[in-house]
């Protein structure tokens, strides 16, 4: 058996496999819910209700999608240049760290300048975190998959050290968490009284910016050229290594915004469980979006919807919350397979 690319996929070809993937996910989840003792036919309804069924559910889903949009964009940008940034998790924490460092009132800045300053500093921190792997790659040919992946662990332990030490909140009753940021450093809510914060707006804005950069700017053109054919890019005079470093800076900055937005928009302080793997999930989001920046928004909403909906379903149907994780994993695996099947046909030899 082998795969043969499809030149001009029909509309049915584009829609049927993802639809089958979705249905299969629901069937598998329903089956597992039945094994766990719940009514299998209520599962899909409960998931939809939990993710998009009420104002609260929708806002919850949008909030959950926000960091995924940032990490998804970070990965999508880097993967376009075939720079395999697996370290969005570390860059996220770098952004979060910068937010609590500058957001806890140590700077005597006017309140209107604090948020822009923090945003700038967070982007810078994330960019710097990814600069080292990028330089190691361009200078010495060190594989960035290894360096960015392993750096996640190093950076998380570094954060842990800070939270147990200098950054530990004196009022935190011994928990390893930082002090809370001051109100001026918090992202305001989009509508008063609703839980959705401006981090979501910033995420949508970033996605649009990245889309414009990729399609209209010379940098976007360079990034795509380097990713598609490094030799031809170099022959044409595109400085391949410079482009890779620029891409890394952009990618790291985007991932750091996820950390900033989680702290400044939602949590208010830095803890070690700030991210339940948003950096890694960003890879899945980017792949689902086929690296398209606007597609990242849709993919993030999909993934966040399953996260939130399955979580809510497991509580409502009184089944273990692990079912939510299983369901997410099933949905993602099947969806990736389905997306592949929209572009390739299986040929039996």
């Amino acid at each position: 058996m082998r795969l043969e690319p499809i030149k001009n996929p029909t509309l049915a070809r584009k829609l049927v496999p993802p639809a089958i993937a979705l249905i299969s996910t629901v069937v598998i989840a329903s089956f597992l819910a039945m094994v766990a003792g719940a009514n299998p036919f209520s599962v899909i309804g409960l998931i939809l209700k939990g993710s998009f069924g009420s104002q609260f559910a929708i806002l919850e889903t949008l909030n959950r999608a926000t960091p995924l949009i940032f990490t998804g964009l970070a990965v999508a940008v880097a993967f376009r240049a075939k720079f395999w940034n697996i370290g969005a998790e570390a860059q996220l924490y770098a952004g979060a760290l910068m937010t609590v460092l500058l957001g806890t009132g140590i700077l005597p800045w006017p309140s209107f300048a604090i948020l822009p300053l923090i945003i700038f500093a967070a982007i810078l921190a994330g960019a710097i975190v990814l600069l080292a792997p990028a330089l190691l790659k361009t200078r010495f040919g060190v594989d960035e998959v290894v360096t960015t992946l392993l750096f996640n662990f190093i950076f998380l332990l570094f954060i842990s050290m800070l939270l147990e030490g200098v950054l530990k909140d004196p009022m935190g009753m011994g928990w390893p968490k930082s002090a809370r940021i001051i109100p001026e450093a918090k992202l305001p809510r989009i509508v008063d009284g609703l839980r959705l914060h401006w981090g979501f707006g910033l995420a949508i804005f970033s996605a649009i910016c990245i889309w414009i950069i990729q399609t209209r700017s010379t940098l976007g053109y360079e990034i795509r050229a380097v990713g598609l054919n490094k030799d031809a890019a170099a022959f044409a005079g595109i400085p391949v290594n410079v482009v890779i470093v620029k891409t890394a800076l952009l990618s790291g900055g985007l991932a750091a915004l996820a950390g900033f937005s989680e702290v400044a928009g939602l949590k208010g302080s830095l803890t070690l469980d700030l991210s339940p793997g948003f950096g890694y999930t960003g890879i899945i989001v980017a792949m689902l979006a086929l690296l398209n920046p606007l597609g990242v928004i849709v993919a993030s909403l999909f993934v966040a919807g399953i996260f939130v909906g399955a979580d809510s379903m497991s509580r409502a149907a009184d089944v273990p919350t692990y079912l939510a994780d299983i369901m997410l994993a099933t949905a993602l695996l099947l969806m990736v397979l389905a997306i592949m099947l929209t572009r390739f046909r299986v040929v039996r030899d």
Partner: protein
Amino acid sequence: MSKDAVEALSLNAITKRFGELTANDAVSLAVNVGEVVALLGENGAGKTTLMNILFGQYTADSGTVRVFGDTLPSGNSRAALDAGVGMVHQHFTLADNLTVQENITLGVHSLLKPSLGRAAAKTRIAALSKKFHLAVSPDARVGTLSVGERQRVEILKALYRDVRILILDEPTAVLTPQETDDLFATLRLAIAEGLSIIFISHKLHEVMAIADRVVVLRHGKMAGGVNTKDTDENALAEMMMGTEATPPEVSPAKPDAPLLALRNVTTADVGSVPGLKSVSLALKGGQIVGLAGVSGNGQAAMADVVGGLLNPNEGQVILGSETVQKWTPRIAVQSGIARIPEDRHKTGTIADFDLVENAILERYKSPAFSNGGWLNWRKSRAFADGIIDKYDVRCPGSETPIRLLSGGNMQKLILGRVLEADPQIILANQPVRGLDIGAVNYVHSQLLAARARGAAVLLISEDLDEVMALSDVIHVIADGRLSPEFKRGEMTPAQLGLWMAGQGFEMDVANAS
């Protein structure tokens, strides 16, 4: 062909479609025992598709393959090999870090008993190489061998497997004229042993020299099959082309001052490929300088230095009257150097970019196509559409990915891209490799037109005929060294062949001392 000839291989009415394109349209080809059949055709005529069907890489839509009377199952890549069909590819499939013997026996002997049969294998290889005049040491590492020797290893590999039918894909592309003669001698020995040979080529005189019969493919269809003794080169070219092929007219050169010069340029070796060794060269306006040589003798380094990709370790690049300080592809392009790269798929274009994106690849930073970091797609599209129009690039539109174009049309886009900038210096590295005669003539006429308007052209080619037909001045490159300059018509192919084999240099040294 005698009446009692035994049929070794026959492809019967093979048809293969890829969507709209019919790559093979009822193509038939038969080879008898002890016969050489040449498969002749332009690039894209369907030769490769036909061979891929024979070896089961593709499944034919209709038609059958028979080897010694037995029909091969379709789509089974082992079947042809097991039936005794062997192929020597244009790009060799050898492991550089293994010895000749290991390469030959790889896949024949069990990996579980690696020590068994080594001595026997060695004896057998020695016998084969003696019998077929394929001189090569079984213990040499393949990485240290010349291209010609590697080809001998490939042929030995096939013979070691007792092939009865040997297919050679463009075998002479990488050989000197002398090596080509040796190859033909070997092939004649193989014929005498009762092998059958399919010889894929686009070089007419070689086809005439070695083949008993010729099958010509044109646009996937059989344009004819003739016995070589009943035809001549012109008739074959016409069959291949559809119309009478006309070689370009070359008027006498009127050289100007040097526009670009290399002075004692030395570059580092890359692996086993030599760099340049103290090379001096002047490219003058209104003149085509041809660089002849066997593949892998420093042509790549020469092209990289002229094209701005490589800075000399020693020596200078002199542009006009100024020594170049910083030398990059972008500076080279800005200095008016048009670069036609050796490999249009790998370095010349980006396959998944459309024609517009490929057209601006070298100059997207220029004010013509971008402003302050933002691309002007309207102007870029107009530029690409202009090239498509003027250079007759056949494509469904400027927003088609360039990978869907044929090699000739891809090359036309590259030509348009570089020539529209009105360049003073043109670096043409293998500009017609793999193109059909129509496209070849077109590219050559463009180079001659550039020469006529006063541009300096450096033509790097492994095809000696091409170099001799077009160049006003010829240099031979061998092992990174550059021969003295030979005027048009001063040297015969055989004399140039000696230089290509490196012997001219020694005689030169001997004469000097």
